């Protein structure tokens, strides 16, 4: 009883924190309109918002990969492939009719003769509030379809490959992602996928900025939208992990044979975990297409999967909050904080600081990653979640329990 009340209180606090975070994002993004003479970091053109957007997208993908690798113990390297499916599904379904001929000019127009937001536009109108509603609904449906397509293909490929063990599963899923990449670049599918060219001109994050009649941006929501989608998806994953399904996943991770002996249907649960993970990877891929403002098969290489795997491991395998924190640190480091390393600096005395030139940032970045991997093997969070840290601190404050806690936390 007490436990239940505690967890209710915990989830209430978590809800408030998340709402506060989302409000903060909206506030920070619109600070420019409220306060004049803002420091350049907070202006809408700042790198900060690129980091926030990309971070939100990647954290969703990282968490979805963590669900599979960290919580179910299935070592899959197909994430980029499922992202590709999501990105293309989203892009194909949302390119407005007016832009189709221009985007698909090599193939004389698209084979898909509609766009979701315009279908809804037929119901709610295409301008003003009705236009906003149809845009939101169209994008939402496209995102869900993106996830469903990815999940369907995951189910399909899961039938044969989920029987494989560890590294074999990894290489088979990696191979599947590469196959998808080739199929989407095939010129014969051009009327749908635009062949090897990119699909663009579909609604992106900045389409959600609210404009007044003169076309001026009144309310910026372009960072809020990816955050909202990512937060909702991650919340669903967290709920799943704390449910009985989540406990079954963890049992499979710890020991497949024991889990099977306890009555867990291995094939069913593995397939479920794989499909759910791919669903969210698909949604993440669609968000990535919105972030990048184009969908292109070339972008979804195995390097992208490795990048996400690195994030998951740096955050701590089996920790959701770890994955999120690691994503933002990773993206901020690679896109923003280390940027100064790419520009040559010449001091007043004419002395040029050695090494600093284009590309040096990534060298330093990969060295940092190597150091983290070698010296912080459990990642930032290990298997703990963010609330666990506060809980531990509270207990440490109680002197009587301190000694006992010390022993058990080390063990």
């Amino acid at each position, binding site marked *: 009883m007490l436990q239940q009340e505690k967890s209710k209180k915990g989830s209430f606090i978590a809800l408030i924190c998340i709402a506060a975070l989302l409000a903060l994002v909206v506030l920070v993004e619109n600070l420019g309109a409220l306060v004049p003479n803002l420091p350049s970091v907070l202006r809408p053109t700042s790198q900060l918002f690129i980091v926030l957007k990309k971070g939100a997208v990647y954290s969703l993908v990282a968490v979805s990969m963590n669900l599979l690798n960290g919580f179910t113990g299935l*070592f899959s390297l197909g994430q980029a492939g499922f992202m590709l499916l999501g990105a293309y599904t989203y892009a194909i379904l949302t390119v407005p009719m007016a832009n189709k001929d221009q985007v698909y000019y090599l193939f004389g127009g698209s084979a898909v003769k509609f766009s979701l937001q315009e279908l809804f536009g037929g119901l709610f109108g295409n301008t003003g509030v009705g236009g906003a509603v149809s845009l939101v609904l169209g994008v939402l449906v496209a995102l869900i379809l993106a996830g469903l397509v990815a999940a369907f293909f995951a189910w399909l*490929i899961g039938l*044969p*490959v989920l*029987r*494989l*063990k560890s*590294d*074999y599963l*990894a*290489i*088979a899923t*990696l*191979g*599947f992602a*590469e*196959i998808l*990449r*080739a*199929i989407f*670049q*095939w*010129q*014969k599918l051009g009327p749908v996928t635009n062949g*090897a060219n990119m699909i663009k001109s579909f609604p992106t994050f900045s389409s959600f900025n609210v404009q007044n009649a003169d076309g001026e941006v009144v309310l910026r929501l372009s960072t809020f939208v990816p955050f909202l989608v990512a937060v909702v998806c991650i919340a669903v994953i967290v709920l799943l992990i704390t449910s009985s399904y989540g406990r079954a996943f963890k049992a499979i991770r710890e020991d497949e*044979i024991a889990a099977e002996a306890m009555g867990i249907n291995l094939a069913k649960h593995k397939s479920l975990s794989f499909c759910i993970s791919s669903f969210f990877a698909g949604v993440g891929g669609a968000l990535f297409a919105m972030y990048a403002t184009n969908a292109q098969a070339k972008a979804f*290489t*195995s*390097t992208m999967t*490795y990048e996400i*795997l*690195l994030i998951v*491991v740096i955050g701590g*395998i089996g920790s959701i909050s770890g994955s999120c924190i690691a994503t933002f640190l990773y993206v901020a480091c690679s896109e923003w904080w280390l940027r100064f390393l790419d520009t040559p600096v010449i001091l007043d005395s004419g002395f040029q600081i050695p090494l600093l*030139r*284009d*590309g*040096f940032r*990534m*060298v330093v*970045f*990969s*060295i940092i*990653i*190597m150091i983290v*991997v*070698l010296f912080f*093997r459990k990642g930032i969070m290990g298997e703990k979640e963010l609330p666990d840290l506060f809980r531990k601190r509270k207990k440490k404050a109680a002197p009587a329990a301190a000694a006992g806690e010390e022993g058990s936390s080390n063990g």
Partner: protein
Amino acid sequence: MEYAISVLLSGISVGGQYALIAIGYTMVYGILRLINFAHGDVFMVAGLMGIYFTASMPLYLSLPLVIILTVVLGFVIERVAYKPLRSAPRMSVMISAIGVSYLLQNTATYITGGQPMTYPVIPFLSDTVNVAGTLTKWVVILTPILVIVLVLALTQLINRTKIGMAMRAVAKDFETSQLMGIKINSVISMTFIIGSALAAVGSILYFTNYQSIVPTAGAMPGLKAFVAAVFGGIGSVPGAVIGAFIIGICETVIKGLPSAWDVSVFSDAFTFALLIVILVFKPTGLFGEKATDKV
């Protein structure tokens, strides 16, 4: 007919080049159970070294130097990035391998400025030769021969010498062999040395064929070589070589199909599709040992 012969020949030579890389993967996996993702990038670095060294010194100096420095690189990578993690979970080591691969690629981008580099023409290897009416490079003829010689030497090393016996013991049972007094670290280093040396030879042959090197040039051949190793049953040297030849030939045949069919984009995808099919029917590859789980 002549076209068929030329396609087949280049398939065999590409297969041979994959085989040289695949041996590095399969040996390391056999001993450490580690997918050494950095191996493809070591191969790429060997190619870059080939470019820089041949520009500044004669061939008889530069080529051996490339091989020696690649070996040193492989050795150092193992000591710095994998050895400290020997007691860590396998996932950590693999992440470390991905980190090394990332580092090598980024360093290569930094040094070359990201521009594609052109591999030098190596006089004898690049000369053309007439085989059954088709003109081809010497490297195409020499690769399979060289591969077979090297593989025979390697199997002799593994089966006949003391270090080879130690390698087999470590591959069989890591911990027990340690108890038997085998110096694990030197065995592992030796594996990396052999793997890197073969990758260096492979890079000379491969880049004589495909002359352009970008920092990610190692990724695809590396991945395919790894697929070849899995295909043949990872841990088995002959398996890796046969797998590599099959994959090389399939790939070139698909690339050589009539362009009206427009299937050349699937040359990489076919490799992976083949892999998935094989794994479904033979989960440990063509020549892999059957794994049994103990409860």
